[in-house]
């Protein structure tokens, strides 16, 4: 099914629970009422008198015998129900007439006797189904043939049991759940409640469900019994099966002798009964053939004496009064098991204390199902909203059915009680009409939520429920004389108990209604153990009528929701601003824009460069201008000073006031005709947000690898020990350093692991609560909310533009001209170097194809790395602009290898829900023949093509390297690092709750993009230092990883496979810089999974120490588990691994 056993079981639990949840809720609810069925009977027959003076059992027996002797001396049998147990609240007798034909089964006559006077009380009880009809609905349902109902119930029981078993399987912490309840945490509270209700009464739920099977096992699975018990004529063998399997032994009783004999005085028998069983255990007597010489008196105990053997009885000779038999049927073991299980199910054995407990557990089970139903809908709705997807019809329907079920069914049962009091006494089929009223009410309660918004319907039906139960005692008082005013003072505890329970139900419903209206909004969850008892009580109260405390009226929680949105938006914008700041650093440094560069630093910034430590922005600026720029802004002609800023791992502090970043800087430095140098080094940055603007607070550059262009990144000559530590401040600088900076990596780069400013991302703990440094508060609230919703959309747009631009690069890599051109607007323009402007998709496609045929030539490389993106989405969200650094590795397949640096300034346009490239202007900064390098070779920017003349001449005339040309920047230097500017629209309408939560989702997804990029980049940082354990920790337990060594399944095997490559940790002299670049990230709609494509560029040395170029693509699937993103799948496809000296063009084969 899904990945992993527990996930499949979780899936199964969820769906099993849903498909039968509504029926099960009904079954549990009405079944629970079965524990008080006779009590309900009593309330529903208010005419039945209440006798305050009941006398002793002996007195009752005496009264009953006198009455029966007078009324029916020749009956076939008498029964006498004594007052005492819950079986009879009054002294009830019945007798059956003697018949000649033994097959006749005449209906018994019944009477209720006043124990004081011995008179029959003809109270003329109303026609009612009472508690019996109500509780039988839990397996007979209603309006369905009995056998069909049984089948439905058996299927539901099976599903219920499977749901419980899977529920147990998915549970990691059954014990912990006993003590865990986190109130007011929305979804989390519901899950806690569901778990708590499930585990606290788990044995009860298991036993009640499993024993439910045993009642109808033949009806459900008749084939084998039919096969075994068929008598050979094809007759169904049901009867003989029952006779064979369920032998209910009866005491042997002699037939009537025909000779009369007077019956013993029944009270006298109680002496022996008390001796056998103890006092007041007897509850019913049955006299067979009273007045006959062979009369027998069967004395039955209260049902509380035994779970399994309520059919025990004492048999007396009716004439002599002698004990004939102490009848204690013994069964074979599985029959005993059957009795015990069924006895446990019925709960007849339970005394009042146990009965209350059973009632509570039954209610708890009902609530367990109710909370499960709400959880199903809430979880899915939250997930869909989080993904920005409109909840579909299924959720709409489930939401409403849940109200109809969880609140509606209790209301319908109240209606049953109301009907009992209000239907006319002489109504034909009155008892049936009670049931009709109940189901009409249920139908109405199912229909009502369909017509109302669920949050309103919930509150309204809850109030209806409160009224329906709260007014029951009032109704009772108005229609009968057995109200609380009578029942309490006269000790009529059953009647009083019913009315008081109704009031309690009303109170619970009212509390729920109030809670639903007020209620809490989403809060960041925190695990906090509570006291199980208190929690259980709270949950039981809350969940009896099942009220989702997070489904609150939009009004009450809106303000908090907006605050939450603001935090999410500002944090995501902060990440974006920091990356823009850092990449602007790269663009400014590239062109020697020293003042702009220095402006990126805070006034009190610290910069640790290889040349030493510089303190304060002024000193840093002086260092740039004097030391690097030799006193002038901009690069001198012929200079190249590229600092391409790559591979960020950026983390925002929980309070949003500061951040850290680890970045890689790929330097391509030198001077035409003089030098060309590769430099690859790592930087740590600390950022701070001041007055709404992000600045660099501290910069630390670590020594990296690199070397002269001709030799590449050869192994550096060994340095003397402690050379770095002893190196003095370089006083020969125009602006000397303020202090020495001792670089821990300078001694030997290959063994140096640059400190990580972050813990391992696979195992790190997420902050429980996060905040943000927000700007001035906008009023009115509606304008503030509308502005945040707009900004959340911009965050999403920014990610979309990034993916668009990077995907373009991947298509160009492979000569997929058609797909690359499809990313442009129909009227888009594209211009590269001095080749002129091509207009329209078709022309753009042809201009792309100037580089080679669709799919490229054999051996041709056309890698166009899309780096250093700075994206600005316009405030209206309709257009966007981006600056990209494009590093191109081309040639091969017959053409010479070229290395090209471009800067693109592109604009984009929104088309419906997606984005297209509107204008692409690629400025060629430097183009060089790979074989020679930029010290020796400077190729001009591409000119106009003879084969495909452009539609328009070049829009900007310039010269590439060695000339120094700065392509115009689409953003102001002053805006870099600046917080987003709010757009205040005083007339804005308040966004809906759904829009707000969608906006939160968008902002969080922007954070997810950042985190996934972090994860991939961190992977590269670990991989290049052979930190196997750290790498493996970034994967899920079951991750499937295809690396060059083969496939590993599971994190532990991955770790073993990595460890097989060599010892963990940096290797002296080794180099394997793994540049993770150009991520394309798609976060799935539910926010819990994502796909990622990331480009690898390797600057490595092989075993012989030769510099190597490597390239490839990582494609990954990621999963978010408990808020932590991890790799679930990863596969690596290598593009090339070639010696630096040969280059990619020479590797064509």
């Amino acid at each position, binding site marked *: 099914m899904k990945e992993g056993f527990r996930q499949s*079981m979780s899936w199964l639990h969820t769906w099993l629970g849903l498909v039968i949840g509504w029926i099960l809720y009904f079954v549990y609810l009405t079944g629970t009422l079965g524990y008080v069925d006779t009590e309900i009977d009593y309330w529903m027959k208010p005419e039945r008198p209440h006798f305050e003076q009941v006398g002793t059992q002996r007195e009752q027996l005496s009264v009953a015998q006198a009455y029966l002797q007078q009324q029916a001396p020749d009956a076939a049998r008498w029964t006498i129900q004594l007052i005492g147990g819950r079986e009879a609240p009054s002294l009830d007798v019945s007798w059956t007439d003697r018949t000649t034909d033994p097959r006749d089964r005449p209906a018994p006559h019944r009477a209720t006797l006043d124990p004081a006077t011995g008179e029959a009380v003809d109270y003329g009880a109303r026609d009612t189904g009472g508690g019996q009809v109500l509780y039988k609905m839990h397996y007979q349902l209603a309006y369905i043939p009995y056998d069909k109902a049984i089948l439905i119930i058996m299927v539901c029981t099976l599903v219920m049991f499977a749901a419980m078993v899977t529920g147990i399987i998915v549970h990691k912490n059954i014990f912990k759940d006993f003590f865990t309840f986190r109130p007011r945490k929305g979804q989390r509270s519901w899950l806690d409640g569901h778990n708590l209700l499930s585990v606290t009464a788990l044995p009860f739920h298991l036993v009640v469900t499993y024993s439910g*099977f045993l009642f109808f096992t033949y009806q459900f*699975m008749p084939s084998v019994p039919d*096969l*075994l018990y*068929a008598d050979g004529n094809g007759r169904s063998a049901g009867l003989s099966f029952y006779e064979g399997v369920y032998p209910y032994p009866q005491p042997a009783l002699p037939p009537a002798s025909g000779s009369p004999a007077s019956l013993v005085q029944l009270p006298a028998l109680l002496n022996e009964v008390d001796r056998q069983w103890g006092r007041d255990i007897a509850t019913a007597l049955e006299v067979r053939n009273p007045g006959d010489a062979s009369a027998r008196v069967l004395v039955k105990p209260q049902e509380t004496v035994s779970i399994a053997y309520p059919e025990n009885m004492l048999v007396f000779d009716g004439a002599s009064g002698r004990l004939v038999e102490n009848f204690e049927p013994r069964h074979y073991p599985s029959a005993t098991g059957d009795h015990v299980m069924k006895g446990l199910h019925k709960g007849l054995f339970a005394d009042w204390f146990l009965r209350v407990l059973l009632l509570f557990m039954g209610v708890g089970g009902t609530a367990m199902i109710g909370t499960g139903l709400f959880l199903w809908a809430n979880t899915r709705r939250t*997930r869909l909203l989080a993904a920005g997807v409109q909840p579909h019809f299924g959720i709409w329907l489930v939401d409403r059915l849940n109200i109809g079920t969880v609140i509606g069914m209790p209301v319908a049962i109240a209606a049953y009680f109301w009907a009992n009091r209000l239907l006319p006494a002489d109504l034909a089929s009155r008892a049936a009409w009670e049931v009709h009223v109940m189901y009409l009410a249920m139908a109405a309660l199912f229909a009502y939520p369909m017509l109302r918004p669920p949050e309103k319907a919930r509150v309204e039906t809850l109030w209806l429920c409160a009224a329906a139960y709260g007014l029951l005692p009032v109704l009772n008082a108005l229609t009968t004389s057995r109200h609380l005013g009578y029942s309490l003072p006269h000790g009529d505890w059953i009647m009083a108990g019913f009315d008081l329970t109704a009031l309690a139900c009303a109170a619970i419903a009212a509390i729920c209604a109030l809670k639903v209206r007020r209620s809490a909004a989403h809060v960041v969850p925190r695990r906090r153990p509570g006291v199980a008892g208190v929690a259980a009580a709270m949950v039981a109260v809350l969940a009896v009528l099942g009220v989702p405390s997070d489904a609150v009226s939009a009004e009450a929680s809106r303000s908090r929701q907006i605050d939450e949105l603001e935090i999410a938006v500002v944090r995501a914008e902060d990440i974006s601003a920091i990356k823009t700041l850092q990449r602007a650093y790269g663009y400014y440094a590239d062109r020697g824009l020293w003042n702009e560069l220095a402006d990126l630093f805070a006034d009190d910034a610290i910069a640790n460069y290889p040349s030493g430590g510089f303190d304060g922005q002024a000193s840093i600026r002086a260092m740039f201008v004097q030391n690097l720029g030799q006193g002038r802004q901009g690069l001198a002609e012929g200079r190249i000073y590229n600092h391409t800023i790559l591979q960020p791992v950026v983390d925002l502090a929980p309070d949003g006031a500061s951040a850290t970043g680890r970045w890689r800087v790929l330097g391509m430095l030198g001077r035409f005709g003089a030098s060309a140098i590769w430099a690859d080094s790592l930087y740590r940055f600390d950022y701070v947000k001041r007055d709404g603007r992000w600045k660099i607070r501290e910069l630390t550059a670590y020594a990296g690898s690199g070397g002269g262009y001709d030799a590449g990144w050869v192994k550096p000559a060994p340095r003397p020990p402690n050379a770095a530590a002893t190196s003095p401040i370089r006083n020969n600088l125009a602006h000397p350093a303020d202090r020495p900076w001792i670089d821990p990596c300078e001694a030997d780069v290959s063994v140096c692991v640059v400190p990580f400013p972050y813990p391992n991302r696979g195992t790190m703990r997420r902050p429980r609560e996060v905040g943000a440094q927000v700007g001035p508060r906008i009023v009115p609230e509606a304008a503030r909310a509308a502005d945040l919703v707009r900004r959340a959309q911009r965050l999403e747009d920014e990610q979309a533009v990034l993916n668009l631009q990077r995907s373009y690069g991947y298509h160009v890599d492979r000569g997929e001209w058609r797909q690359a051109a499809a990313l442009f607007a129909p009227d888009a323009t594209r211009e590269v170097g001095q080749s002129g402007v091509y207009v329209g998709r078709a022309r753009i496609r042809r201009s792309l194809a100037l580089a080679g045929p669709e799919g490229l030539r054999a051996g041709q490389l056309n890698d166009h790395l899309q780096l250093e993106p700075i994206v600005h989405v316009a405030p209206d969200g309709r257009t966007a602009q981006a600056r990209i650094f494009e590093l191109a590795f081309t040639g091969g397949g017959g053409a010479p290898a070229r290395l090209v640096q471009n800067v693109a300034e592109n604009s984009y346009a929104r088309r419906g829900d997606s984005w297209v490239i509107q204008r692409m202007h690629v400025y060629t900064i430097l183009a060089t023949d790979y074989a020679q390098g930029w010290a020796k070779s400077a190729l001009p920017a591409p000119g106009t093509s003879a084969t495909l003349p452009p539609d328009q001449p070049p829009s900007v005339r310039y010269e590439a390297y060695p000339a120094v040309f700065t392509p115009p920047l689409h953003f102001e230097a002053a805006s870099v690092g600046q917080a987003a500017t709010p757009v205040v629209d005083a007339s804005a309408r308040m966004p809906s709750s759904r829009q707000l939560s969608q906006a939160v989702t968008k902002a969080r997804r922007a954070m997810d993009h950042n985190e996934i990029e972090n994860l991939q980049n961190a992977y590269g940082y670990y991989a290049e230092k052979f930190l196997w354990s750290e790498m493996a920790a970034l994967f899920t337990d079951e991750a499937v990883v295809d690396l060059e060594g083969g496939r590993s399944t599971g994190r532990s095997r991955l770790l073993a496979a990595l460890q097989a490559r060599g010892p963990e940790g940096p290797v002296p002299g080794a180099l394997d810089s793994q540049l993770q670049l150009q991520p394309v990230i798609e976060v799935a709609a539910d926010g819990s999974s994502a796909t990622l494509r990331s480009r690898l560029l390797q600057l490595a040395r092989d075993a012989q120490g030769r510099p190597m170029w490597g390239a490839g693509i990582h494609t990954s699937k990621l999963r978010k588990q408990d808020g932590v993103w991890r790799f679930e799948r990863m596969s690596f496809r290598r593009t090339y691994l070639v010696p630096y000296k040969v280059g990619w063009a020479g590797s064509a084969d």
Partner: protein
Amino acid sequence: MRAMTAAHRWSVFSRCVAAALGGYALVSLTHLAMVALLPVAQHKALLFASQTGYLTWTGIIVWCFAARTARRAWTGLAIVALPLLLVAGWFLAQRGVA
């Protein structure tokens, strides 16, 4: 949200059928097999079998949805059913019912 592909739907459907009909058939077979093999009277064995059958069925449901593919779910049921069928066939042949 997981893509609701046709393949996924068919897989769920197939598992449901396996859990329901396959479960019914397999549990019935275990009833027969227990009657055949348990050294107690037929009615005792049958009652015991029908009491425990729902545990078996629950296990079957869990298996049908835990198996990596629907085909594996069915295969697992078939593997268990085979010896039970043999026992049941032998038993019925002995009784002269089949």
